[in-house]
């Protein structure tokens, strides 16, 4: 395929990338020809989407079924007051277009599940997981493995964030190698129950975009094989080594998971649990 030259607008827009030897014209072209699927347009998906768009990732798919709620605005910077009640994929699309019209936005207004995940993942180069529940974590892990897609993983809780990257089909290990089984229902509080410091997803989600772009460009050292833990309360980072577990039911030597399963049943919960919220008066009294 002949390469279209950069337009004058693009030369200006991407000037700071083009001058970086690690990106340059070839790298920028790679980004423009890359497609990334974001799972969730929430806390993590917001900064990830904005930075990936600004960087010139050519196609951004967004999976989200929620509408914008007032309690989102403390951290989900894709959405604003004017978006309250609108589907998140719609406000996300507008925010992305406002930053970079080069980017094609593909809206997937659906609940990711075992029936649709493999089809949704198929056309994308990288999957960025900013979801909010365990069934979807295991689902995206397994579907990324079966589709042989890199999976950028981020998670947040109160002041703590975690992030890593799996290329499980290449033998790097997967989410199940680290956490073979989901926690018992109720053992892990959700953000709605436990709270989350609003800037935290900004940091973790930005790092997810950072690692995604490095992966696409093939530069630097990625987080594959390492889980990064950010403890915002004392501003420290720690790292845990990850490797493929030969006994992993998905990517191990004798896998028992050979296709997508019923993840809600596996986790003993429903994916779309209503968020536990306190009444405004109760919250204000805290």
């Amino acid at each position, binding site marked *: 395929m002949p390469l279209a030259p950069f337009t004058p607008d693009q030369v200006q827009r991407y000037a700071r990338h083009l001058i970086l030897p690690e990106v340059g014209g070839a790298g920028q072209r790679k980004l423009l020809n890359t497609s990334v699927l974001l799972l*969730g347009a*929430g*806390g*993590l*998906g917001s900064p990830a989407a904005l930075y990936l768009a600004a960087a010139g990732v050519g196609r951004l798919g967004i999976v989200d079924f*929620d509408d914008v709620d007032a309690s*989102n605005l403390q*951290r989900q910077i894709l959405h604003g007051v004017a978006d309250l009640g609108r589907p998140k994929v719609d406000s996300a699309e507008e925010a992305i277009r406002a930053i970079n019209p080069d980017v094609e936005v593909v809206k997937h207004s659906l609940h990711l599940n075992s029936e649709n995940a493999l089809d949704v993942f198929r056309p994308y180069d990288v999957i960025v*997981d*900013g*979801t*909010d*529940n*365990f069934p979807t*974590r295991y689902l995206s892990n397994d579907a990324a493995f079966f589709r042989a897609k890199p999976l950028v993983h*981020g*998670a*947040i*809780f109160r002041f*703590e964030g*975690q992030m890593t990257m799996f290329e499980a089909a290449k033998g790097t290990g997967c989410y199940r*190698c*680290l*956490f*073979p*089984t*989901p*926690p*018992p229902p109720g*053992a*892990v509080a*959700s*953000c*709605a129950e436990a709270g*989350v410091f609003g800037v935290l*997803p900004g940091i973790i989600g930005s790092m997810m975009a950072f690692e995604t772009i490095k992966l696409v460009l093939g530069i630097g050292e990625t987080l594959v094989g390492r*889980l990064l*833990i950010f*403890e915002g309360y004392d501003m*420290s980072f*720690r790292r*845990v*080594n*990850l*490797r493929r*577990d030969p*006994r992993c039911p998905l990517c191990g030597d004798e896998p028992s998971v050979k296709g997508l399963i019923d993840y809600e049943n596996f986790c003993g919960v429903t994916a779309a649990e209503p*968020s536990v919220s306190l009444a405004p008066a109760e919250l204000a009294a805290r």
Partner: protein
Amino acid sequence: MNLRVNGKDVELPGPISLLDYITGLGVDPRAVAVELNGEIVARESYTELTLSEGDRLEIVRMVGGGCR
């Protein structure tokens, strides 16, 4: 006995099994992954593993949230 747990120095009176140590912290062992001296420990080994002087422990909590 001195350990390093999640990047912080911790002093313990004596050897203790990994499982007893974790549960003593009020942590549900089914909701974490544990790295001991740079290696992830299989959950089945929590009872038989005894912590000793100088061990470096990382307890990684399972976090579902991206927060919608």
